[in-house]
């Protein structure tokens, strides 16, 4: 097989690593984000949630990844503690950093959506005697999901792209493999264009899925009022 063929195959073989990292971080970040938004509703926990969001949105993800992989992992209690098997793994460290970082961004998206629910619809729920949980389940959560979806989708696309930073701590994802191939072939432009195409494929697929979900939540095919 020619060079481009083998390289494409090598890059495609790395797609599962990228996808795994993306899915695991998306799941983790969304859960943490929900907790952050819940924390922002109570005065006691508000400060902590705010600080978390401030720190993780205000510093580069690359630095956070290094911090977890080199900085935190070098601390005594981690190095000699029961968590060491996890912190030894670059993939775990990349996942942890991405979960923390992206949770801050997603929390902001969710908070925005929460604020965008028309007050009257909450009042209507109150007026017919819905309790806190019924309200959350029936009115608030579905509306937040629908209102947040476009911005949430943007965050997910950003996350796919951010997974490439894991290559900087030796994870062999698509970018990692691309750099490996370049290191012994020196065919920079070809390899990067192939890698770019792989990422474009992934982001396009994600965008298509998101659009599908958006449409299924909005059966009229038009924006909500």
């Amino acid at each position, binding site marked *: 097989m020619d060079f481009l063929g083998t390289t494409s195959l090598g890059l495609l073989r790395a797609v599962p690593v990228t996808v795994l990292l993306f899915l695991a971080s998306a799941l983790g970040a969304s859960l943490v984000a929900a907790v952050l938004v819940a924390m922002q509703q109570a005065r006691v926990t508000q400060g902590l949630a705010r600080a978390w969001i401030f720190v993780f949105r205000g510093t580069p993800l690359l630095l956070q990844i290094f911090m977890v992989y080199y900085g935190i992992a070098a601390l005594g209690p981690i190095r000699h503690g029961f968590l060491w098997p996890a912190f030894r793994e670059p993939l775990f460290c990349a996942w942890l950093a991405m979960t923390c970082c992206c949770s801050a961004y997603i929390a902001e998206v969710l908070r925005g959506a929460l604020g965008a629910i028309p007050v009257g619809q909450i009042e*209507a729920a109150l*007026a017919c005697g819905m309790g806190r949980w019924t309200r959350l389940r029936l009115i608030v959560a579905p509306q937040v999901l629908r209102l947040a979806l476009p911005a949430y989708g943007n965050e997910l696309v950003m996350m796919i792209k951010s997974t490439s930073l894991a290559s900087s701590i030796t994870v062999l994802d698509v970018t990692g493999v691309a750099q490996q191939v370049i290191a012994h072939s020196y065919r920079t432009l070809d390899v990067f264009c192939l890698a770019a195409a792989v990422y474009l494929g992934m982001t396009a697929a994600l965008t298509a899925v998101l659009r599908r979900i958006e449409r299924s939540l909005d059966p009229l095919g038009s924006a909500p009022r």
Partner: protein
Amino acid sequence: MTQTSPSVLSARGITKSFGGRAVLRGIDLDAQRGDVVTILGGSGSGKSTFLRCLNLLELPDAGTIEIAGTRAPLAHDRHGKARIANPKALNALRTKTAMVFQNFNLWSHMTVLDNVIAAPVHVHGVPRAQAVDRAHGLLEKVGMAGFAGHWPRQLSGGQQQRVAIARALATDPDLMLFDEPTSALDPERVREVLDLMRALAGEGRTMLIVTHEMAFARDVSSHVVHVRDGVIESMGPPALMFGPDASPVFRAFLSP
């Protein structure tokens, strides 16, 4: 359900201020089963705030409220600030009432049918099939029979308000609160909603209506209440209120 007293509403000494401005300055109001009470007043008179105090969407600073034998669970902390004493009792009070809003406030992510069955199924625990049956009946009653599967934003304002009324009827409330139900409607849509409310009054529903529709107040209500500057300026049956012996202040309000 054996209600010996026909009293549905008893509100005493309701006061409320926003940021130091007194909006309600002591309102007493009673309603018996079957009463249709319209509350009239200029904008800023406090009439909507009063209505929203009754189901505790606003917390009154002072006063007591009793609706169909259930007392509003109001308490006051050391600084006199009002709070809900018991959230469970709060929802119990709210399930005795239903509210129709000026801006309809239909839940935009639910179909018409889901809007109507939400409270019966999820608050009152009515089996879904039974609630759906009843909802279809109510939709027919409000003239929206063919619209069960529609989404709120596919409907005109008048249609949305009629669905909102069906939603309010779905729990068979003891007291219906209408907060300027026709103010957000096009003039030609006002009628369809007023006609529906007229029909409800004819059935003996107990209704409290904040409105600007004078003709409706005169023809349909059993009592007319004029609120001005946060107090009841005058009240009485429409024959009196719209007759020659009405209070001069109310007469001035009617013919500005």
